[in-house]
């Protein structure tokens, strides 16, 4: 009699336990992202299926990733963090982690293992560039050019950007030193594996600026990722750098006469961070969501909507066709072997150190 009662009790607590856990999770979640096509891909690939599984959960999107670091710092100082999960580029994630504004995660307990059992830490591999960073996508900053404005020999090498004789006309470059300095040195004869050693010296910085000086009068400097696609579509520039996903939509979705120049594309990462100091119920909810949203299938699903490479090794074979256009997405990924013959990886450590210094020089040079 007594044992029966205990067994019943145990069974009922076993039933109750998951319910109690669900109750401990907040039902509202504020996700921060970049807006536009990228955010839409996240909504479709992560949030909609998650809400199908948990109909009581309400997801609010905030398009503030652009200024996430500053806003998180302000929220932290005010002691009222209203965001639950923030999409940032890796360099910002490193800074947020450095400032203690993002929570450290343990990939093996906080992230799902790959279907074949590979641990999350191995599946993401080197892309876990910070203790707080949960990678989602690999994107690249690369050049696109107007096929109708470059004559019969379209550019194939990064140094064609610096060749005003063969390709006259304006170029669009980002209004910051990162990437531009590397490309300039590369085209000034510096070997690829020595670029950062050279760039660390004042002479190397001068050298890079001197190379940029040769095209300075033909450059339109952009600060928003949407600028270059617009400038290309208007025919304002012959070629310009921007994120590969933006160029994809200009070429494939808007069918503009634009082509990709993948040479010396710079890989960068984008992913989630969880703000530090969330209350327990919100943290439980966001951890549950992250576990789901960064699993192998979800990351592969995202590639259906936008041409950014999934950050997990195990997701790559699952990348299929574009959700609306039905074209194969793999050849449009920056990580596709045909596109990735000559690539750069954003050097986070270098730029964390040299950003302030080189930026001051770069801005002074720009203003001259």
């Amino acid at each position, binding site marked *: 009699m007594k044992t029966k009662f205990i067994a019943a009790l145990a069974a009922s607590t076993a039933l109750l336990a998951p319910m109690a856990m669900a109750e401990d999770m907040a039902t509202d979640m504020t996700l921060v992202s970049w807006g536009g096509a990228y955010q839409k891909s996240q909504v479709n690939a992560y949030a909609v299926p998650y809400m199908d599984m948990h109909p009581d959960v309400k997801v609010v999107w905030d398009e503030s990733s652009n200024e996430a670091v500053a806003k998180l710092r302000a929220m932290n100082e005010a002691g009222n963090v209203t965001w639950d999960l923030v999409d940032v580029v890796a360099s910002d994630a490193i*800074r947020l982690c*450095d400032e203690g504004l993002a929570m450290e995660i343990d990939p093996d307990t906080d992230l799902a293992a790959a279907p074949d059992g590979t641990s999350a830490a191995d599946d993401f591999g080197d892309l876990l560039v910070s203790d707080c960073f949960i990678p989602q996508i690999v994107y690249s900053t690369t050049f696109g050019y107007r096929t109708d404005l470059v004559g019969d020999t379209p550019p194939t090498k990064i140094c064609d950007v610096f060749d005003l004789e063969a390709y006259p006309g304006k170029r669009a470059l980002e209004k910051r030193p990162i990437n531009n300095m590397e490309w300039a040195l590369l085209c000034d004869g510096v070997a690829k594996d020595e670029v950062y050693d050279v760039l660390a010296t004042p002479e190397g910085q001068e050298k890079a600026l001197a190379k940029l000086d040769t095209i300075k009068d033909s450059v339109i400097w952009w600060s928003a990722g949407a600028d270059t696609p617009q400038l290309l579509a208007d025919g304002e520039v012959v070629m310009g750098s921007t994120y590969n996903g933006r160029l994809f939509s200009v070429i494939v979705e808007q069918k503009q006469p634009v082509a990709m120049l993948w040479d010396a594309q710079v890989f960068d990462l984008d992913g989630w961070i969880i703000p530090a100091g969330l209350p327990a119920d919100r943290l439980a909810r966001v951890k549950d969501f992250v576990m789901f949203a960064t699993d192998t299938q979800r990351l592969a699903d995202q590639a259906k909507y936008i041409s950014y490479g999934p950050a997990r090794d195990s997701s790559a074979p699952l990348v299929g066709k574009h959700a609306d256009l039905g074209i194969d997405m793999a050849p449009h990924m920056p990580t596709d072997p045909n596109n990735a013959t000559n690539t750069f990886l954003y050097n986070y450590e270098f730029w964390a150190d040299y950003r302030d210094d080189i930026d001051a020089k770069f801005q002074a040079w720009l203003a001259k």
Partner: protein
Amino acid sequence: MSDLKSTGPQAAAAPPPAGEPGGPVLAADGTPLKRSLNRALRRQKLRALMLIAPLLLFVLLTFIAPIADMLFRSVENQIVSETLPETVVVLHSWDSESGEAPAEPVFDAFYVDLFLAQEQKLHTRLGSRLNYEKTGMSSLFRKSGRRVGKFDTDIYTDQLIALDPSWKDPATWVAMMADSGDRAALPFTARTWDRWVAYLATEGDDPAKTKIEDVLFTTLYLDLRATNGSGASDARITQAAQAAAGFETVSLRDQFADADKNWMDPEVWGTIKAFSPRYTPGYFLNSVDMQKTPHGIETRPENQQIYMMLFKRTIFMSLVITLSCVMLGYPVAWILANLPTRTANLLMILVLLPFWTSLLVRTSAWKVMLQQQGVINDTLVWLGIVDDADRLVMINNQFGTIVAMTHILLPFMILPLYSVMQTIQPTYLRAAKSLGATNWTAFWRVYFPQSVPGIGAGSILVFILSIGYYITPEIVGGTTGTFISNRIAYHISSSLNWGLGAALGAILLAAVMLLYWAYDKVVGIDNVKLG
């Protein structure tokens, strides 16, 4: 206010007896009239104050306080002395001109500070702060933070525990650190212990149950060597003090040199020392193209000077924009003021319409108009005025900024001008003409002087708005048409150097106030009318 104050002493003095000849005039209730008047006035003023109190509080809380807080950041620099309290004190006696890295005691103190900082994840924050002043500090702190927990200081732990295994027990430390005699014998350990306990409290850990870290054994050893444990009541301390002389030691200076050779660079220590005070002029120096270095205040290298040029450009372009607004706005306002009301109201809508349109839309529209493949260039090429090969460059430069901002700010000029011109009697002009003035003389000598207050008001509005403008220069300014506010925005949202952003903002604020003061001196602020 002066009335309020003057009631004080009078109220305190006893009123003279009523009806006495030569006494003050009395009110109906027998109090002196002056006093009861004052009281009534005070009540009125209080009521007025209460009426505006919500707005006053609102402005104080949401406007003045944030601005004051932000301005305060331009000098605030507590992060260094709060993160490295021990180091800052010892470093004080080190001479940054010595050309050598500091001696052992600085590294002993720094070891403790850095260990506690990395436990609390504060070292990387300090690293980014110091990286604004010296390149490389960010990774130096991040890298050393990872290494500091693995220093060879565990030999002190091992040797002390070998001497008496009870050292391993955290509870004995709690008891020892509660004893004032022991604390006096081990001052460095006591200070470190207090910080350690404070940190554990934030983590919710019990110091009596948490493993004693190597860092505490290190400070214990250093204290034993320094004070010989004299005055301690714990017998273990006296025992250890005797044995400590024969301990195997480890140089923390070498440990740090091993972790990163940059710790042997006197410039690194010079920077820490130069920025160790709680308040620093460093940000302000940076914002006028100077810098605070270990060797005093220096001008920045020429290839990094940017802010003075941006300040000058901002003021110059704001003046140009203000002037173009006057030139374009004056005739418009004049026409509006002299048309019949119905037509004037209709035209007024045309002035106000862009005012109600989103700023971004208007700015982007100028992009479409001005760019090389834009409407204006296309038209000029079609008309054959401009050759297709060299289309005009009208955007992403100063010209683009001036055109777009003049258009955006024009209503701020037209509206005050219009309302002032409406009050000018047309009869004055007619009178002037009937007295023989030409059209020009009548306008210049009679009409124009009366419209000056409107120009003044419009100019102040337009100038102050444009000096702090940010989004339009960002979009159409390219590299030569951007303002100082674009750099402020960069430092606030991108580089996170809020101190520098605050200093630049403070200078901008001061410049505006100075110009306002000069304007008041020259033109007189009484001559400004908004309507």
